[in-house]
């Protein structure tokens, strides 16, 4: 399965400014280096509702698995 990077890039536009800011840094710094496995994990993450996604990103909720945790670590890295 081919994941279109442009689509994921667009879907990083969220309803909460908190997430937009986190994804902005991620898109500039990390996104182009992601491999296919990581893109799948990102796609899963982006399906979440924004409040749930923000809770995982800010650490008040745990990530659901290791693959997701790795993406979240990139999102959280200052």
């Amino acid at each position, binding site marked *: 399965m081919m994941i*279109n*990077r*442009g*689509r994921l*890039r*667009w*879907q990083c*536009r*969220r*309803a*909460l*400014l*908190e*997430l*937009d*800011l*986190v994804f*902005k840094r991620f898109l500039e710094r990390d996104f182009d280096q992601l491999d296919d496995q990581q893109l799948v994990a990102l796609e899963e993450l982006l399906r979440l*509702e*924004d*409040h749930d996604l923000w809770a995982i990103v*800010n*650490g*008040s909720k745990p990530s659901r698995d290791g693959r997701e945790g790795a993406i979240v670590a990139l999102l959280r890295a*200052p």
Partner: protein
Amino acid sequence: MSVVKRTFDAVIVGAGGAGLRAALQLSEAGMKTAVLTKVFPTRSHTVAAQGGVAASLGNSTEDNWHWHMYDTVKGSDWLGDQDAIEFMCRKANEVVVELEHYGMPFDRTDNGKIYQRPFGGHSQNYGQSPVSRSCAAADRTGHAMLHALYQRNVRANTQFFVEWMALDLIRDGDGNVLGVTALEMETGEVCIFHCKATIFATGGAGRIYHSSTNAFINTGDGVGMAARAGIPLEDMEFWQFHPTGVAGAGVLITEGVRGEGGILRNGSGERFMERYAPNLKDLASRDVVSRAMTTEINEGRGCGPDKDYVLLDITHLAPETIMKRLPGIHEIAMQFAGVDPIKEPIPVVPTCHYQMGGIPTNYKGQVVVPKDGNPNTPVVGFYAAGECACASVHGANRLGTNSLLDLLVFGKSAGETVVEDFTSGNLSLRPLPADAADVSLARLARLESQTNGESVFDVGLEMRRTMQKHAGVFRFDALLKEGVARIKDVAERAKTTEIKDKSKVWNTARIEALELDNLIEVARATIVSAEARKESRGAHVRDDAPDTAEFPNGRNDGEWLKHTLWYSDGDRLDYKPVNLKPMNDDTKPIVLAKRTY
């Protein structure tokens, strides 16, 4: 380039609270309805709203719509139209209860009614004491509202076009609206949506400012499209600034933090609000606190190396209180200010939050423009609701929780009007002009072929910085005048932006370039309208229009009790009267008075 055409009874641009509420009305009436949205409906910015939605249900304290109407008129600094305000306040209970029936999980009182809490500016008995008028679903009111409305729309067979961006409004030679052109992101194709009725519900444009609480999606597309198509924009000089956005990031820190005892301090650690509002101090109304903060910063008493922010201090609160009563604040401060608020104060600045002006409508949701001597002539086939529209209920300043109410009431009202016009045969599918898609195709072709242009980011940054400096919380004549010239210059530069990525599908660079065109229209409207309004009113406060005996709060009703209308073509300004007459003859008008709290 050939352009595919799709035909519907109605097209709604926007799937936030306003768009979804309008769509429901149409689909349930059996109209063939398309809803276009840049992002999945439940990722619209309405999701960010936490505070609640206003309705005078009187479940927690005695209340009625007359009091709500008074608060809203006074909050608007008398610039709101009293017919529309009466309409909104009278309809509030109905639309909130309806939402409850759609499955919205409102917080409950012990006896099962919708729980209500107090909110700034809302009062009992014409300003006498605070009232509990805000209905909320925990801290996810907007989110819960969108979900309830979305599910209901799915049931009613509303057809969604997700990840489609509307580009331009289509009008015929007589000015009637025939639909929109839109870009499908997945294919890069442009398509014409031809219809009998077009409703805009595209939300606000808070991204024209450098410091904004709004998510990146709020680029004022509907407002920009309307302006480019010759529709004037109303009262665009009025923007609400929230006092506590995290410096540099903009993320909103809720009023609740000051409610729990948070204190604002300047560079020398002084609790400066004591000087500006001896009674309410840090809890004075949004505009008062924002102006006090700005004065401290402008007079060199800010904090940090550039003295360009103040501090919100909660270090004196018990850590348990912070974690329990102010959930989320800890995370926001850590992520965006790099401080642990339990140990260190949070850097904050007044931050652009809400657009009071927009596309002019009446309370029925019809877009209205001056024509043949009537300043409020409906444009055939064109309707608008939500933050992109100006009904005008918020006038010069919006009360918290009145915006979610606006979405429900005017989303529904616009929908009802369309259904009425549709069933009575007032609407027809008018022939498309041959050049219907030409404007959009030319915009895309320009981006395709542009070389040696500036980046969209650089031009956007210049716009945001200019707006922040020249048309911020406090306004100065010289700065405004200079700002008008600068924004015109930025607008010229936006005409030759260049994108490096020319790919067809999922091209976010192209989308951002198209969004910038809309932001630029909004920025021009804002600064030109602000420069021209020589008084202070609500959120528009000029240094050269201070509080005097002749002009209380700097407001000059003799000359300026009127709505601004800005036309994109030549930056032309026009004005129209404020409607001080309520909708019903037996409703007493709220007479002009000084706005004090």
